[in-house]
């Protein structure tokens, strides 16, 4: 069964290099198929593909939509949502340098 989640991203520079790496690395720790979209309608991209996630170039104040399918789909969505909500564990100073 497909599970879905969405989260509002406030990171100052949006989904650029460093946040993309963190998101992809986290997604890879789950076995579920995880996809990401910047609109609820798609296109859906593989959240484990660093090249595709970076290429999405989601700017600040974008709502990110996730959907996942597989045994640990629920846990994966929880963890990804939490990462975005924590602002990718980056302070304002880091963001300015990113």
């Amino acid at each position, binding site marked *: 069964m497909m599970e879905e989640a969405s989260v509002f991203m406030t990171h100052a520079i949006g989904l650029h*290099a*460093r946040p993309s*790496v963190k998101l*992809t*690395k986290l997604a*890879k*720790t789950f076995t579920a198929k995880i996809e990401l979209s910047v609109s609820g309608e798609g296109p859906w991209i593989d959240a*484990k*593909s*660093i*090249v595709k996630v970076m290429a999405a170039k989601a700017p600040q104040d974008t709502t990110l939509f996730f959907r996942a399918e597989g045994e640990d789909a629920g846990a994966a969505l929880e963890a990804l949502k939490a990462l975005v909500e924590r602002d990718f564990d980056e302070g304002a100073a880091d963001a300015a340098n990113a």
Partner: protein
Amino acid sequence: MTKGNVGIVIVSHSADVARGTADMVRQMVGDEVPLAWCGGDPDGGLGTSVESILGAIDQAWSEAGVAILVDLGGAETNSEMAIEMQPEERQSLIAICNAPIVEGAVIAATEASGGAPLAVVCGTAEELSPA
């Protein structure tokens, strides 16, 4: 993951470029990937040396293999030479990625950190290259 993660070697003509690229990998991806860099000739000028590439490969060596990111011409040919000088059983476990050195190193290390095999590590970095 018994073999560990694929290692990354950065080979530039400039020690500053190589070191800076390695810094980006460490900061953006983290410590779970074996990483080594080399750059510059032994006199401190621009260039690459087979000897330092051999050293970097040893430093970043992993049972899962090593992906090498290079900048221009000599970095690639000297890396090829360094691979040929490796013991035969190692040669098939070393690959030069056809990708831009900085972006490729970060992407390759991101893949490697998730435990991806060498072919996937290089293939993903190469997705960046212009078609």
